[in-house]
């Protein structure tokens, strides 16, 4: 019976829960977009750039991958304020997790670029394409396809990481779970329901990406296997 009451309480909060889900999804997409826009150039810079550029990128990548997400959230939230710039928790979360994701994504893309081999680039250059043109027309289309499985892993891990934005006060799905949990005094049921929502968001995203991978498949060009 208590369980039913708890579920009813969650039902009554359905609108805020949906709002929270929306925030979670928005946060995930924004940070992935930042990660993608930064991650690709970083990967290209590391593979095709000169020594100085690639060293800087390695340091950047290492740093952002070594510092816990939670610490990054605090740094991006409190950091600007120290210099008198005030940003919303939501924006701070997007920046912190987005920069972090760019480090992971650049690693994914770098692996894909290196797996493609020199032949494609040489063939493109032999046609008279500039390096930039070769990258845009030949390398990137292959790299993006090959990256989808790993990118799908990245999606599911950053989706879960957005729950940490709770710590700097973003009113996301997790935060709403927290509020209802306090009200109903039965946190397990509430958190389980919230967990189910996250689970389905993960599933929906990874399913979509697997569909995309199949849709874009080129005969004879295998997507990279990802173990771990």
């Amino acid at each position, binding site marked *: 019976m208590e369980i039913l009451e708890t579920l009813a309480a969650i039902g009554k909060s359905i609108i805020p829960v949906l709002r929270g889900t929306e925030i979670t999804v928005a946060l995930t997409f924004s940070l992935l977009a930042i990660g993608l826009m930064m991650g690709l150039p970083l990967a290209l810079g590391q593979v095709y750039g000169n020594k100085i550029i690639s060293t800087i990128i390695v340091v950047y990548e290492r740093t952002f991958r070594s510092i816990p997400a939670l*610490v990054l959230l605090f740094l991006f939230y409190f950091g600007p304020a120290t210099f008198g710039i005030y940003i919303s928790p939501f924006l701070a979360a997007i920046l912190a997790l987005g920069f972090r994701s760019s480090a992971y994504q650049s690693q994914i893309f770098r692996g894909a670029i290196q797996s493609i081999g020199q032949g494609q680039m040489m063939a493109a250059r032999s046609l008279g394409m500039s390096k930039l043109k070769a990258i845009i027309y030949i390398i990137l289309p292959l790299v993006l396809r090959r990256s989808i499985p790993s990118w799908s892993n990245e999606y599911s891990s950053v989706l879960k990481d957005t729950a940490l934005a709770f710590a700097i006060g973003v009113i996301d799905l997790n935060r709403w779970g927290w509020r209802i949990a306090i009200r109903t005094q039965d946190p397990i049921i509430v958190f389980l329901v919230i967990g189910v929502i996250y*689970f389905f968001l993960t599933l929906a995203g990874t399913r979509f990406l697997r569909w995309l991978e199949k849709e874009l498949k080129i005969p004879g060009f295998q997507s990279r296997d990802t173990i771990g």
Partner: protein
Amino acid sequence: MNFLTLDWKTIFPQLLKGTLTTLQLTAIAISLGFVVGILLTLGWLYGNKPIRIFCRGYVDLFRGTPLLLQLFIVYYGLPRYGIRFSPFVAAILGLGLNSAAYQAEYFRGAIQSISQGQMLAARSLGMSEFKAIIHIILPQALRIVIPAWSNELIYTLKYSSVAYMIGTTELMFAGKIIAAKNFRFFEVFLVVAFIYLIVVLIISHFLRMIEKRAKIPGLQMIS
């Protein structure tokens, strides 16, 4: 922003204590995850149908939901049903059971990468399936999995910071206390970030040494 004006004499011992707790938490959680992860893998690959479904479900569930949520369930959810843990123990359980799911996934990948012939040859010598797993399959799988497992260890170390959210007094928590007392959030968290960075780099270095030591010609490691 000036790090020199921070009261290092009082801050340093607090940060050190927090760091040690973080390392402790990580070590115990990863070990718990290792044991449970191995059991999950074996159940998943060699168990009967109900066991297989349970192990699969466990892995999917723990990998499909945020760690923070899992910690909340253990620390805030279970007391309602009379099960109460200290923040430290709750963090170990949450992190450990979460890591078990990821470790199981890595172990499974490693075992499945071992050719069927190894099992056949072991059985043809008269080994039982259990013996073959213990003497032939696991020793190979555990070597193959080292790089992936090293990543998991580093992940667990970093995500142990989430335990701060249920009041475990680890590095992050120490940072928060110091920051609040001095009202110097940015500087203190920069110091905390730096500590994590150093610890991660040192441990990664050690893990890579172990990886090199464990290398056997012909055994391809997966990362």
